[in-house]
């Protein structure tokens, strides 16, 4: 089922007369395709959980419409929307066993939807099998590890056969190893069931790694929507460029003048079809090529050897960042002279953004 948001806005009123309140979700217009895994990504407090709550119906929007398929669900009660929601803390009922937790939503069904005990058991077992917890059915939630609790929560959300599955920060309560495992697990379950799934996260790596599409948000406003690689390679503004990717993209203050891109007095690239203006130059760590004759000079700080590749740590007068990073192959030699390291820049991974608007400025390499 596809999900369409139309001018969706949620404002929280201020507590006092002077407090203007917060617009947590500002004029969302999205069409989420059927059967895809969508990552809703943004820093803490950007309104992504609010967006999720609007979809689930736990919050009512200030204005705008939500469509599930062709059905307008804006004013529909949460339970009528056919949504499975997995909470950040899982919200498993602690006094019920795993199987009782999974059965709980089915026992609520009334009227025509009402199931016999056998049917319920069958559905619950199917859900349990899908998330591979068949052997834990009689345990209480507190006897499970974080990852297992997560699976139970997903099973409980799936057992109703929802049209849409929502996951709120699904991996934030897990340790690093489980996180890797679980995100593959979520991806697998999504593919097996084919349910349109939206998950919220502040971790860009998480979102990039499993999403079919990511939606990047900031301060209640959608910044960019697209396939992860597409958004990474072609960020629309400085925020998106800086938010995606580890290590972070390196930002310098620079200027376009007479067909050349300058950082300070150093012309780092020849550019075409772009007006003269002050810009931010954002360079992906992999776009630096160490070159003793290179145009860009930076103050060398350290080399961090990571086996497969090496990261060069340096600073620049033209960047506010305390440490800039270049990732280079382990076999490439770096020879700083008098504490200065010089680079050439690869143009496809070097983006420029207007200094005032922070919007992307497209250029061609000359």
């Amino acid at each position, binding site marked *: 089922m596809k999900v369409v948001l139309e001018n969706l806005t949620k404002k929280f009123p201020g507590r006092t007369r002077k407090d203007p309140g917060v617009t947590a979700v500002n004029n969302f217009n999205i069409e989420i395709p059927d059967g895809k895994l969508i990552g809703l990504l943004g820093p803490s407090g950007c309104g992504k959980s609010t967006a999720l709550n609007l979809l689930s119906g736990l919050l009512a929007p200030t204005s705008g419409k939500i469509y599930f398929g062709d059905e307008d669900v804006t004013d529909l009660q949460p339970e009528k929307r056919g*949504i499975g*929601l997995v*909470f950040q803390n899982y*919200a498993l*009922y*602690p*006094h*019920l066993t795993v199987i009782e937790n999974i059965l709980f939503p089915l026992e*609520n069904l009334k009227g025509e939807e009402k199931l016999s005990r056998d049917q319920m058991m069958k559905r619950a077992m199917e859900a349990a099998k899908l998330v591979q917890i068949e052997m834990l059915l009689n345990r209480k939630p507190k006897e499970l590890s974080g990852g297992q609790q997560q699976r139970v929560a997903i099973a409980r959300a799936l057992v*109703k056969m929802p049209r849409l599955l929502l996951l709120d920060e699904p991996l934030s309560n897990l340790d690093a190893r489980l996180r890797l495992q679980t995100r593959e697990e979520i991806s697998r379950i999504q593919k097996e069931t084919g349910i349109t799934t939206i998950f919220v996260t502040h971790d860009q790596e998480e979102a990039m790694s499993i999403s079919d599409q990511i939606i990047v948000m900031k301060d209640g406003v959608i910044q960019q929507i697209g396939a992860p690689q597409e958004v990474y390679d072609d960020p629309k503004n400085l925020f998106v460029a800086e938010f995606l990717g580890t290590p972070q993209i390196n930002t310098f203050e620079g200027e376009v003048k007479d067909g050349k891109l300058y950082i300070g007095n150093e012309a780092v690239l020849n550019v075409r079809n772009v007006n003269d203006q002050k810009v931010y130059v954002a360079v992906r760590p992999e776009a630096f090529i160490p070159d003793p004759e290179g145009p860009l000079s930076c103050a060398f700080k350290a080399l961090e050897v990571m086996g497969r590749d090496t990261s060069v740590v340096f600073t620049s007068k033209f960047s506010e960042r305390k440490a800039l990073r270049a990732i280079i192959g382990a076999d490439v030699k770096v020879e700083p002279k008098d504490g200065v390291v010089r680079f050439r820049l690869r143009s496809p991974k070097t983006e420029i953004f207007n200094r005032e608007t922070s919007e992307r400025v497209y250029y061609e390499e000359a």
Partner: protein
Amino acid sequence: MMEKRDLKGWLYLLPAMLFLGVFMVYPLIDVFIYSFEEEFNFASQSFTGYGWDNYRFVLRDPFFMRAVRNTFILVIITVPLSTGIALLISLGLSSIKVVRSLFQTLYFLPYVTNTLAVGLVFMILFKRTPVSEGLVNVLINWFGGESVDFITGPYWAKMLVMCIYTIWVVMPFKILILTGALASVNEDYYKAAKMDGTSRGRTFRKITLPMISPMIFYLVITGFIGAFKAYSDAVALFGTNLNAAEMNTIVGYVYDVLYTEGGGYPSYASAAAIILFVIVLTITVINLLVSRKHVHY
């Protein structure tokens, strides 16, 4: 190393242990021994031997049996009622947002109000005086009923007043505990239940109640124990001669055989106290057994 640390620990415990030993443990043991000393003479501090005589006497004493009956009626009526009403009020309190703290304060007032003041209020409500019938009787009359003498009248009327009084006095603490317990239930459980279309009744039965069950259990246990120990409430309402008023309680009986006129029988008092202890113990054990199935920690 270990031993030295052990010693230090005991040293820190010493003041409390001394205090408890002198004022709690020793008297307890003493009461137990007293209860078996037959034909104990208070003046000469002598007795004829050990046996069940005191228990036999107490259990055959009609005043004691009346006290037991009163106490049981009081317990059976007030514990479930006060807990239930407190739960309803707490649910109400936690579902309103406006003027909630005002109501919370109002409901908590009895807890901090002087017993004498409370007694006075009940007098105004229930007691007949030459100038007034009492507020409740005024109301009864207004609805066309006949006046009832609540303080010196029929047994059921006196028991009614006693129960209302007890419930009213124990309620604030229960409301306090239960509103706290309700507030501590994570909001996400309710959201999850809402997403699943759980009805309000089922949410209450299947989520709220199990989540606050340890607190309810605590209130029931302490409620039982408190009600079995009832005495001062009866005195506040019906004066010190509770036997004459037919409103004596077990603790009242213990006091009577010890101190009132015709008293001075520590052996009988001890036996009665031990019987009370056995009753409370039995009820508590039953409570614990029941709770194993229904209380979720």
